[in-house]
């Protein structure tokens, strides 16, 4: 299994706290401006920990019959939503874990939910349909049936929602009920991420490639040669670099100048097994990556996609999700064994340190 020995956090990652939930931890995120760390497990357990100390604040069990699949924390951090195999979407307040709303969509899995950037809408994927609810849980909009199960969603702005499914990415204006754009490509799209300005759409595909489109110029490109499926993608906050999984190294494409077409990507090589999650810090060019071997690394990237490790730690098992604290002073990782680890991240000055501190 893991080809990596356990080791203490190194570089800019420092001992923080750790905790344990009952089952495979599948979703996590910071709420209440980083005061609370939320974790959901596959069995439908939901736990809230104090962000600084790791002390358990509240816990719920079996919140979705059949299993929990997704979580999205409202931009203001005071509420969040969960979804599961029971076809329900639950809205909760973060402080005490009280459920405030339960939406029943039907018999089927709800695998993706996402609050819009301004927090006015919650987008919900139910099989081949996408619903948009307002903050009060009222249905605001519903898509036509997609040709196949929707595999990813992302808000390009507060009124426009992108959906990916087999063969196409579609941009919906959910306020005026229009299709703004449809990008077609014959392939099974398994992941999608948008650049912060919404112009670049990148999708990982079942055929081990990353396909991307520039909406403004209609140019599209395909990056092939990945040994596995690029199920994990992340853009930095400036939209300059795109980090991709699909192997045991992080491949970073740079959109500087005429790139990434015709350029050689940066490669971040330290993990020993395939990448299982990626997350950029809220500011600066810091990337955190987790892998199936249980290793977590943080990297400082340059605009050309090259990068150096600035911290490393071992999370014990396949890292299922990774989340930067809202002010980037901590990094949290959850794993397949229900393990939770939060490291303090050395506070950075204006000029980030490079290499191991």
């Amino acid at each position, binding site marked *: *299994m*893991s080809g990596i020995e356990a080791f203490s956090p190194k570089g800019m990652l420092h001992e923080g706290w750790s905790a344990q939930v009952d*089952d*495979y931890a*599948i979703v996590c995120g910071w709420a209440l401006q980083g005061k609370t760390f939320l974790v959901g497990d*596959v*069995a439908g357990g939901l736990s809230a920990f104090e962000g600084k100390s790791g002390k358990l604040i509240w816990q719920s069990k079996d919140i979705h019959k059949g*299993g929990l*699949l997704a979580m999205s924390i409202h931009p203001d951090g005071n509420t969040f939503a969960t979804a599961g*195999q029971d076809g329900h979407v639950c809205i909760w307040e973060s402080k005490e874990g009280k459920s405030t709303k339960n939406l029943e969509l039907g*018999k*089927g*899995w709800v*695998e993706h939910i996402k609050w819009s950037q301004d927090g006015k809408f919650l987008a919900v994927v139910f*099989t*081949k349909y996408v619903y948009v609810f307002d903050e009060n849980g009222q249905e605001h909009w519903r898509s036509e049936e997609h040709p*196949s*199960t929707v*595999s990813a969603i992302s808000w390009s702005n507060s009124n426009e929602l992108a959906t990916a499914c*087999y063969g196409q990415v579609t941009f919906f204006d959910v306020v005026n009920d229009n299709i703004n754009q449809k990008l077609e*490509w*014959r*392939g*099974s799209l398994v992941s999608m991420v948008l650049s912060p300005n919404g112009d670049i759409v990148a999708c990982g*595909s*079942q*055929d081990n490639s990353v396909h991307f489109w520039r909406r403004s110029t209609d140019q599209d490109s395909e990056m092939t040669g990945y040994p*596995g*499926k690029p199920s994990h993608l992340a853009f930095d906050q400036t939209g300059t670099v795109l980090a991709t999984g699909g192997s045991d190294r992080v491949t970073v494409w740079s959109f500087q100048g005429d790139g990434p077409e015709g350029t050689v990507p940066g490669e971040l090589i330290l993990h020993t097994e*395939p990448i299982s999650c990626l997350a950029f810090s809220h500011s600066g060019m810091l990337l955190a990556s987790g892998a199936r071997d249980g290793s977590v690394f943080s990297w400082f990237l340059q605009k050309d996609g090259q990068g150096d490790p600035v911290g490393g730690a071992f999370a014990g*098992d*396949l890292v299922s999700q990774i989340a930067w604290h809202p002010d980037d002073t901590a990094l949290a990782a959850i794993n*397949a*064994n229900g393990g939770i680890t939060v490291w303090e991240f050395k506070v950075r000055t204006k000029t980030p340190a490079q290499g191991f501190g």
Partner: protein
Amino acid sequence: MSNTQKVPVTILTGFLGSGKTTLLNRILSEEHGKKIAVIENEYGEVGIDQGLVINADEEVFEMSNGCICCTVRGDLIRVLGNLMKRRDKFDYVLVETTGLADPGPVAQTFFMDDEIREEFSLDGIVTLVDAAHIEQQLGRSDESSEQVAFADVLVLNKTDLVSDESLDNLESRLRDMNRMARVIRSKQADVSIDTVLNLSAFDLDQVLQRRPTFLEPEYPFEWTGVFSLEKGRYELTLEEGPDPTMSLVQLLDQGKNETALNTGAESCVRLYAEQEQLMNPGDLVPVGKHVSLQLQSEGTKSFFIDVDKARDIGLFTQHTAEEFNMKLTKVNTPSTDEIDNDQNISTISPIAERVWVAEHEHDDEVGSFAIEREGDVDPEKLNRWLSRLLSEKGVDIFRTKGFISYAGESRRIVFQGVHMLFTAQPDKEWGNEPRRNQLVFIGRNLDKAEMSKEFDKCLV
């Protein structure tokens, strides 16, 4: 840490009404101690009452390269991807597909997707066949032929609605299409669970253990009896049977061990190819000649065999002796005891009997055949040939299985494929076993002669 044992998956396929749901419910309600997850197509026939049941649309995803072997089932990848996060909840998966689904992409998913391959192993493909309706379906739809072709186990269900004779015909037709599969008959999907779960069908050794004769050559005769006879005249009697005529060859000095039977069979194949002599009841059966017994008349028919000295004779017959209640008795001459004249007519039992895999005439496009050769193959030549064959004909080759003896390799190489996907790996040591090669192909309009010739060119 996660354990490395892969979760076995059985694919259950068959047309609407063939009894899949009945079978699923039987499996789920039986005390087998397994925790089974069922992935059911959205249009499940009736509800399934127990176990972890997940509905999934059958979403077949082709890739932009257009290669059919890259076609996978997106829904399975999604659902299994989530299931593997819940390993403690189940230890077996059943995937039900509709009769209209192409089994190819389902099987390919377990070869093509890294994450799925790491956690799950395809255990086998079970196809349910509605004995009363399959004949029409085979004539009408490619899907039904493909489901038969892909199967490791064929459950011939609802046999109570069909006569035994039709069942026999149907079974032989299905066997022609797929020689690898095990055929099981059932009335209401009442088959024992171990015939559909834990098949290890993709493990060739297991297959060979269960069906050591699955690669047997086909013969134009079904039965051989070896009789140890004294000098004298014998009567061969036949009752009503399935055919108005039956071919037969009589061989002298037929040995009863396996080698001798095979040698006899080989020489009979040649004799069967010759023009048959018609024999009417009462005629004397010649030695070493292809004869056709004329059985049109009613009641018992008798033919005679003369033996010049004590010796063993072999009778190679087109049908089994059982089918015509065929008996051999010594004809008493008046000089022998007259005390118990009547009771003395005792049937002579054969000292050896053998039922052969019979050849059938059929016109299904889908068929299967085996290539079996002794000796070693040149790995490079074989790879070149197989790569070319699978890239040109992969669409029409549904399944491939077998083992190969590579020159210079002390272990057997076992391989199997689905369409163009092909995996080969070293298996056990040859040791003292004679080195040989067996390949089985199941597909549409395959040219056996051509493929055998091509394979022979790969031999060292």
